[in-house]
């Protein structure tokens, strides 16, 4: 059974049983968001949500916001928040939000009160600012959203984080103290993406060749302390929420910009499935896929770079992914590309990017997937730029110029599976990976300037200075998952924008961080 309905606290049964006395706020909170993308399969579906819904969305309000003392680096600032519904702290059971700041900082916040509980700053004296920043693509600092795992002790959780110097830290959520000695993991000053945790192994992958290091997938085996690696692959593996992991212990990632030449062991512009050898702890390639037009994708820099979402469908474990070309691919994890490694189960037409641009268009970040009350499987794809003139959906919500969410239903037709367009959301200023809770789709436009070239500056426009200057502010939306109707919007409440951020949902709250170091908590109170 694929646990893609979110992680459950070990104390859930105990909490549900102790209903004689009115529960405290923390005792009510039984949903967690322990990893970027919501779960190891990266469906971004909060399956344990009981408060937020399509009917309560209209009551969403800003509950609190906290501005943290993290200094941004290039365009990076705060990474997506992680939420533990019930942590046993000295002050009692507490719902804790953990936020990572790019400048080697961890913050823990009381989710109910919006109060800072502790701050942890990693020692990066071996790296520090003596190493010149390499620019927008390689900001240095912490770039990988940590992952939180339960321990053998109920109510006690450990944060696994990779700091700027490439060290793996294990930190107690309750108080920020080290739960284990820091350990060598990967080279410093690199660019790993969101950590995943599966069966006592940490998974991640790197991109952009930051720090001069090759772009590889990494695993840290917590039991043995061995680090597996596999790569290089493509121009880097940069799915926003890191690797997705199947029930067969295979991690999947897009490989980014690069040639596709598997006979020579070169896997650019495709998707690879990599698995840890349980004996040696090395990483091994077990499957791979490239679109039939991978050569074209390479030529136009239309990377396959989106974190896939893995889900169960009538006993089959399927996966969806996408790339800058703006198509969605449906694959079977039994064999993601079929016999020739080039044949998915289904490929959509282009949703956007009619002009084949490498920037400000395409599907970026990550997918999302959920099952509605009728048992229908949905797939969501965020995209940037105008909708393709030929892409249609039965329900559309106005002209799309800057981005939107496209929703598909997975259906069987003519003996096969297909993704049938269902709705396209309203226009959003750079639609980012959505998250789902109780039939409500939460999405946001980042407000980030994604311009990488202009007629006057050429690629000189692709600098943090230029793009920060031209960024505006993020807007959070709640949409009806069946229709795409906008149920609520944050309007002008969020005053800054974000880059490489993400949504987290748990216990009636939605979290989003911004470039100015502010973590916003929107939601409803019970």
């Amino acid at each position, binding site marked *: 059974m694929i646990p893609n309905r979110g992680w459950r606290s070990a104390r859930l049964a105990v909490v549900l049983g102790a209903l004689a006395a009115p529960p405290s706020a923390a005792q009510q909170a039984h949903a967690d968001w322990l990893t970027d993308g919501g779960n190891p399969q990266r469906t971004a579906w909060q399956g344990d949500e009981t408060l937020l819904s399509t009917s309560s969305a209209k009551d969403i309000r800003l509950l609190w916001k906290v501005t943290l003392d993290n200094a941004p680096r290039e365009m990076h600032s705060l990474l997506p928040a992680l939420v533990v519904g019930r942590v046993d702290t000295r002050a009692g059971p507490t719902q804790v939000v953990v936020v990572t700041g790019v400048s080697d900082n961890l913050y823990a916040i009381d989710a109910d009160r919006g109060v800072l509980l502790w701050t942890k700053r990693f020692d990066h004296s071996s790296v520090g600012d003596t190493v010149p920043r390499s620019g927008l693509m390689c900001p240095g600092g912490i770039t990988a959203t940590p992952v939180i795992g339960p321990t053998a002790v109920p109510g006690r959780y450990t944060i696994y984080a990779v700091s700027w110097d490439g060290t793996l830290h294990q930190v107690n959520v309750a108080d920020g103290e080290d739960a284990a000695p820091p350990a060598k993991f990967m080279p410093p000053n690199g660019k790993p993406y969101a950590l995943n945790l599966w069966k006592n192994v940490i998974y991640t992958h790197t991109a952009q060749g930051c720090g001069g290091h090759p772009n590889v997938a990494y695993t840290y085996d917590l039991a043995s302390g061995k680090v597996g*690696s596999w790569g290089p692959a493509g121009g880097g593996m940069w799915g926003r929420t890191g690797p997705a992991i199947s029930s067969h212990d295979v991690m999947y990632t897009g490989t980014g910009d690069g040639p596709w030449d598997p006979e020579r062991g070169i896997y650019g512009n495709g998707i690879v499935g990599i698995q840890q050898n349980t004996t040696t*702890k090395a990483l091994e390639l077990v499957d791979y896929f490239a679109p039939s037009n991978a050569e074209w994708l390479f030529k*136009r820099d239309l990377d396959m770079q989106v974190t896939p979402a893995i889900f169960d469908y009538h006993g089959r474990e399927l996966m969806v992914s996408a790339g800058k070309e703006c198509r969605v691919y449906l694959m079977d994890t039994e064999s993601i590309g079929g016999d020739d490694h080039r044949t998915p189960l289904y490929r959509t037409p282009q949703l956007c990017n009619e002009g084949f641009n490498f920037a400000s268009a395409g599907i970026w970040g990550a997918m999302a997937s959920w099952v509605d009350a009728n048992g229908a499987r949905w797939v969501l794809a965020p995209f940037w730029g105008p909708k393709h003139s030929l892409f249609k959906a039965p329900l559309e919500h106005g002209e799309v110029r800057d981005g939107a969410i496209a929703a598909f239903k997975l259906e069987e037709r003519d003996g096969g599976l297909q993704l049938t367009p269902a709705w396209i959301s309203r226009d959003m200023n750079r639609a980012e990976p959505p998250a789902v809770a109780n039939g409500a789709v939460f999405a946001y436009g980042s407000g980030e300037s994604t311009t990488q070239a202009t*007629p006057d500056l050429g690629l000189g426009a692709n600098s943090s200075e230029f793009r920060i200057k031209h960024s505006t502010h993020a807007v959070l939306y709640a949409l009806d998952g069946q229709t795409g109707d906008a149920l609520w919007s944050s309007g002008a409440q969020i005053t800054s924008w974000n880059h490489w951020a993400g949504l987290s949902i748990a216990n009636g709250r939605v979290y989003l961080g911004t470039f100015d170091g502010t973590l916003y908590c929107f939601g409803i109170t019970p």
Partner: protein
Amino acid sequence: MRASAAAAVVCLGVVTWTPAPAQDWTTGGYDAQRSSWVRAEGKISAASLRKPGFQLVWKLTLADESTAARVVMPPVLLDLMIGYRGFRALGFVAAAPDRVVAIDTDLGRVEWERRLGTGAPPAGGSPACARAMTPSVARSTNAALPTLSGGAGGASRGAQPARGAVGEPGEGAVTLAPLVARRPEAPAPAPAPPRPPAPRPTPRPFPIVYVLPSDGMLHTLNVMNGSDAEPPVPFLPPHANARGLIVVDTLAYVATSRGCGAAPNAVWALDLGTHQVTRWPGRVAGAHGPAIGPDGAIYVTTSDGRLVVLEPRTLKPRTTYRSGGPAFSSSPVIFDRGGRLLIAASSRDGRIRLLDSRRTTFVTTPLSSQTAADALASWADTDDTHWLVASAGSRGSALAAWKVIQQDSVPRLDPGWVSRHMPASLAPAVVNDVIFALSRGAPSSAAVVLHALDGATGNELWNSGSTIAPVAHAGLSAGGSQVYVATGDGRLYAFGFPMEH
């Protein structure tokens, strides 16, 4: 020969030139040496053309509907441009009247178009000067001699194969090991501070293309959208018949002929920094105009049988070689053999004349054609044999290839091969080891045909059949694994191996 020229020849010894990297088709005849030889990793090779797959990938009609002007020229190319619309491979097509059209060469789509100059023919102009309404287009060209090796290659382009690994417990990933190895045992002494580099002008943030329309003003356009990157600069008198526009460093050169407009027959130079214009009077031969040597010197063939070497920028004559024969018919082609600069050109008696720049006399081929070729192609195979290819046979009905042989440091031209019958064959282009040439049927009858020949044997590997419509004028350029044919009816054809989009 003048004593000064003789002295110049004696002083030339074996020299070495830093080879330039592979480049795009930036001017007539591809490069500064007018070799018409595209050498780059790509899909086109004799081996690949023996298999099916090479075909028409797109065609465009670029004729001006409003004026019925139809002449288009083979595109100047830019294989990779990263702009605000995305990654692009562009071709810049000169089209009458006074238009330049940028084409997305992957998709065969117009990216942008500019109309420059007056667009109006000169009052009372002769038909021979009508071509003056088609602008000249060029991109910056490197004068250094390119690398000799070519050949098709794979798409991997140096990417490393992936492999798995595992580190020892507690040692982290194996990717940490190179960092440990790089750490010095003791701190190295601080190096001396580097000398500050000479100040250089700030480079433009985008590539440009140069266009010289009929008004004689040189335009510098942003390749992303055709907007002016610089104000236009006066270069030629209006309505001159210009050909062979080439830009090397900060100097633009072009040849004029036929006395069109108010322009005398000459080679012209424009200093892009000072905007000063100089000219050297002469009846310039050949379709591609002057060739540029690795030191920037200008090599000009004339219709009175001279090969003249001019100083860059000033165009002062440096050396003059007399062929001892009739007028030259083609532009010179320059190449290097063992450190010696060799120059070849065809003449009106159908021979190819070859000069070692250290000597004063030409070696020639036997009579091979009653029709003089107006352009040669020059290439080298992987066995280090250098070839010259030109149209040959009675009335230019075939291609002939000659090997450049060095014996006792003296070059000679040995027969290589003669192609099958190709009526009225036009100037060839070489892509890696494949010779592409156009043949045309009698006017208004047979189609223009693009032929692909094995460069080592002359055997035909492929032809375009009836794909290209019958037309009197046509020309070739090539790059990015595609071959372009521009025809006098305003069409542009692209041939290559289709890629799924």
